[in-house]
């Protein structure tokens, strides 16, 4: 066990201590500041430790074993390249969210329901990443779910939140049970639960197949793969915004970690067809996720659904990595995996940023419904700027970071011709198409999100009198915005930072980027493709400022404010502006008619009638109706049938006993 491990562990213990402290402090006013202050402090320390590891490029793996958990195995912890990377993601998010919480937490109505669970949640996520035996892993995993559930239940008086919590925890334990089974397969009947043992063991193809399926169920349900995503848009918005940020931005990534750890590290190399499943799932998830998001008018729910899309993109990357790896194309595999991990980092950055923004809007206006907002860009300039950065980043637009990871994914897709399998040759480009589609729709989605919420004129007094939020929240948002920018302009360093991971998992890495000309990134060779976020940024900045300069210098700079022109129509009421629904109407018309059975109903009163005209748009969540509702129905049917047994007469119960006896005796007679 090394010093690093000791620091990490003590950090985690620190989190738990803070949780205990929070319980002790109860509802006292200082609690909020103390808890979030401490949490952000600890997260920063942990972050520093792991970042230092990367910077020093120390490849050494640190272990630690504690006499806890399963007695005859003990609790194993291990810090390798993969864990290091995900620890960065976790603690970066943790630090940001805690910083944000310092300000946002002041608006919390029930702090005593948040503070104890928040640090414990962080501890849980850190533990999952560090765990090195099945028991510790699952324990931390489920603990993480449990704590986040408690956080989702913070505002438990609203029926929807209770429902969200219920669906969430049931799905979570469904996932955990799937993981249990997976590890049961991996570790065998006599319980070799430590990851070393699992790594050492050889896993027959059928076993590998089952494990993959179970991991897709287990990790997938936590990450939010369609159709296991249903809990996500319910639970994430229900929690306080900084927790939503953690759940969406970080916890889903922990799920991705679990998938990578098992499939890439423990399982060895699965067969190529495994990648087909992952790819198709990823593609569908990406597109459906963003379509769902487009249909929303609740800002936080939109963001939550959009997380589903990004998970899809990540899984596309992972699927590609699997495909290439199975065919020994380790260079391409490294590229794909790097793309996926890069997107993991990016998404954790901008999704947290966006949830912070949504939280700021919520605390400033008390509204999550975009149709009741608008014009906030005037009232909350800083928030809206940060949010805009987030939107550009998540819409995969250069020169910000979202684009880089999607670009890398595309580059990986373009390696498909070398694949020997025909099905892959066909599927990979098709999935690439899906990826492109989802990227375009994402841009549409965030034009809508930003446009409806921040632009135009305020639709309600609440939006009209909003004030920009406290410095802590702003600090958190701007830090993350800056990080998005940095990762987008200097992607080379991130890629190099990821090389140890790919090296450890695939024994291959992308070419060193740091010394590429103009800090551009070159996946394979410059003749094939290259991209320089820095130059693109510089050029755009130069061109824009040049244009502006010349025009202001040599042409006119005069400016007059006047009423909006609007083809001469005087705008009646702000409510007459385009709403979330109307903005999405064309896309709904084109895409959702099939997928969500979208219907529109126009009720136009005859001339002379005084009643108002109505336009109603119906949407059905086909996945819920088709998959989950039937299950609920079935369960309650069986429950009703069986419930009769509660109301039998004693004689009937006796006859049950009698029958049991006779059957057993019969069995015995036949048996022996």
């Amino acid at each position, binding site marked *: 066990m090394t010093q690093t491990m000791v620091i990490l562990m003590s950090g985690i213990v620190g989190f738990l201590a803070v949780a205990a402290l929070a319980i002790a402090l109860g509802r006292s006013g200082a609690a909020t500041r103390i808890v979030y202050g401490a949490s952000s402090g600890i997260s920063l320390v942990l972050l520093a430790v792991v970042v230092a590891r990367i910077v020093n490029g120390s490849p050494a793996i640190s272990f630690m074993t504690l006499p806890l958990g399963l007695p005859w195995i003990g609790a194993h912890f291990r810090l390798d390249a993969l864990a290091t990377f995900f620890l960065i993601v976790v603690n970066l998010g943790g630090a940001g969210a805690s910083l944000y919480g310092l300000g946002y937490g002041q608006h919390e109505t029930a702090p005593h329901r948040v503070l104890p669970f928040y640090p414990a949640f962080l501890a849980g996520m850190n533990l999952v990443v560090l765990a090195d035996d099945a028991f510790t892993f699952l324990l931390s995993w489920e603990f993480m779910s449990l704590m986040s559930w408690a956080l989702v239940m913070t505002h438990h008086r609203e029926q929807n939140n209770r429902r969200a919590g219920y669906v969430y925890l049931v799905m979570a334990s469904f996932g955990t049970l799937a993981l249990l089974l997976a590890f049961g397969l991996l570790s065998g009947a006599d319980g070799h639960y430590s990851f070393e043992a699992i790594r050492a063991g050889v896993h027959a193809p059928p076993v590998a197949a089952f494990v993959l399926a179970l991991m897709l169920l287990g990790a997938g349900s936590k990450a939010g793969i369609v159709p296991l995503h249903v809990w996500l848009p319910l639970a994430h918005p229900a929690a306080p915004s900084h927790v939503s940020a953690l759940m969406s931005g970080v916890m889903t990534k922990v799920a991705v970690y679990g998938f990578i750890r098992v499939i890439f590290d423990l399982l060895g190399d699965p067969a190529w067809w495994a990648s087909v499943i992952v790819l198709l799932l990823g593609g569908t998830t990406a597109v459906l996720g963003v379509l769902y998001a487009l249909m929303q008018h609740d800002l936080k729910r939109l963001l939550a659904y959009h997380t589903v899309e990004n998970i899809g993109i990540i899984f596309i990357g992972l699927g590609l990595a699997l495909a290439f790896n199975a065919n020994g194309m380790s260079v391409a595999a490294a590229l794909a995996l790097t793309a996926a991990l890069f997107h993991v980092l990016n998404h954790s950055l901008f999704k947290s940023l966006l949830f912070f923004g949504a939280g700021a809007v919520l605390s400033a206006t008390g509204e999550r419904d975009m149709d009741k907002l608008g014009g906030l860009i005037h009232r909350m300039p800083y928030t809206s700027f940060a949010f805009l950065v987030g939107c550009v980043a998540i819409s995969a637009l250069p020169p910000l970071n979202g684009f880089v990871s999607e670009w890398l994914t595309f580059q990986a897709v373009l390696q498909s011709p070398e694949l020997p399998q025909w099905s892959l040759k066909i599927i990979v480009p098709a999935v690439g198409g899906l990826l492109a589609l989802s990227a375009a729709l994402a841009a549409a989605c965030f034009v809508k999100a930003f446009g409806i919420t921040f632009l135009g004129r305020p639709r309600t007094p609440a939006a009209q009198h909003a004030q920009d939020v406290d410095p802590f929240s702003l600090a958190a948002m701007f830090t993350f915005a800056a990080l998005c920018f940095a990762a987008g302009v200097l992607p080379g360093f991130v890629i190099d930072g990821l090389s140890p991971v790919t090296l450890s998992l695939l024994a291959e890495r992308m070419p060193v980027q740091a010394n590429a000309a103009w800090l551009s990134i070159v996946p394979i060779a410059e003749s094939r493709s290259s991209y320089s976020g820095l130059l693109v940024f510089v050029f755009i900045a130069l061109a824009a400022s040049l244009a502006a300069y010349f025009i202001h210098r040599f042409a006119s700079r005069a400016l007059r404010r006047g009423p909006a022109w609007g083809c001469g129509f005087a705008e009646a009421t702000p409510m007459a502006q385009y709403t979330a629904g109307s903005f999405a109407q064309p896309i709904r018309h084109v895409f959702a008619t099939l997928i969500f059975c979208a219907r529109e109903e126009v009720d136009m009163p005859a001339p002379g009638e005084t009643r108002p005209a109505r336009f109603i748009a119906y949407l059905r969540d086909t996945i819920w109706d088709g998959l989950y509702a039937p299950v609920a129905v079935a369960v309650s049917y069986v429950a009703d049938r069986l*419930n009769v047994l509660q109301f039998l007469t004693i004689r009937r119960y006796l006859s049950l006993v009698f029958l*049991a006896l006779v059957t*057993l005796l019969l069995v015995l007679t036949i048996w022996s």
Partner: protein
Amino acid sequence: MNFLPFDPVAAVLIVPVGGAALLALVPGYRASARLNIVISLTTFLSAVSLFVVDRPVPGTYMLVDDLNIVFIVLNTFVGFTTSIFSGSYIAHELETGRLTTTNLRFYHAMYQIMMFGMNLAFVSGNIGLMWVAVELATLTTVVMVGMYRTHEALEAAWKYFILGSVGIAFALFGTILVYMAARPVLGEGQDAMVWTNLIAKASAFDPALLNVAFVFLLLGYGTKVGLAPLHAWLPDAHAEGPTPISAVLSGLLLNVALYAVLRFKMLLAANPDAITPGPLMVTMGLVSLIFAAFMLYRRRDIKRLFAYSSIEHMGIIVFAFGMGGALANFAGLLHMVMHSLTKSAIFYAVGHIAQAKGTQKIADIRGLTVTHPALGWGLVIGVVAIAGMPPFGVFMSEFLVVTSTFARQPVLAILLVFGLLVAFGALLLRVTDLAFGEPQGNTARAEASYVPMYVHFALVLIAGIYLPPPLVAWFQHVAGLLG
């Protein structure tokens, strides 16, 4: 070296009996409640002393070994905590006039007799004696279930009584058969009923006879374990009796019966030609688990809800032992301990909740975490723990059962997991209604004793993260014997 002035085993038995006699005489519930606590504490301490002194040599009647030492201590411990809980519970019952002081004398005396019966069942090294002890414990609980004399209570008691008696009969027949099997080998008389001899010579017994015997014993004692379809008495008995009794029923009596089943399973395991009881137990376990899981959805009475959850967990445990193997058996033993600690704690919470709200109807109880935080969160913790969520002990046992099963019998494991998920869904649904949402009903502060509940939770929490080595060693040894 035995430096104690007394023989712990004898103490564990004599103290409750003497206590019962004493309590029968003491008037005034305060005194008797305190006395009850003191007696239980003494019993517990003398049981604990079993850890320090070296174990008595197995005799004709008494036996202390790796298997039962843990359960004796657990039994007396829960008996002790329950007596504390019962103290504050009874006080409230007197106020509301559901019980009279005369009832209480009887109640406390019975309580100690029941403890005696259960302790005896654990320490007895003789199948006949064990039978007597289990039945004694059962009959006393029957009487206590009927305590409130309401229609429901009497009806529950009657049902319990009839079904219990049939169970008794089966168990006895099974015992006789075992004796018949042993007699040719061990000769007539007591020797043929002593555990140590039985186990030692089991390989020479007539296997076929053992099989029949086991069927009867499984059904006989299984009736008390509450395995479906023999479970019918359990929910009503839990729901209608005084809550301390519900706690003891779920926490201890089920364990006693299960302990008996385990003993006889050992016997069969020691005989190579006898049927492996695995399949029978696995089937009954799964049936109980899944059946109870579905039953949970339609429960309207909070105590009945957790009674069904007890059936569910007994199912899991029996399943684990049925699977056999070092891991599964270990898990089963661990699960027994964890379940009795957690479930009794839950009943403590439920008892106070029912008193505070003045109802047992789930529909009338809402938002407990708002009105009664300690009780509400206690309930949440309890449900979370019993549902097998980390970091509580049940998680470890369920982890071991599921993982070790799936590698051997995938289909069974999937059924098991299915049952667990269904049950979890139901429990979570209920606890969400109970503990969260707009508060409903009486919001007056409850004067309750939270200590026992939270002590139990603390223990379960610790066990979920760290198990003391000696315990592990004993369990592993027993797991080996269980085959």
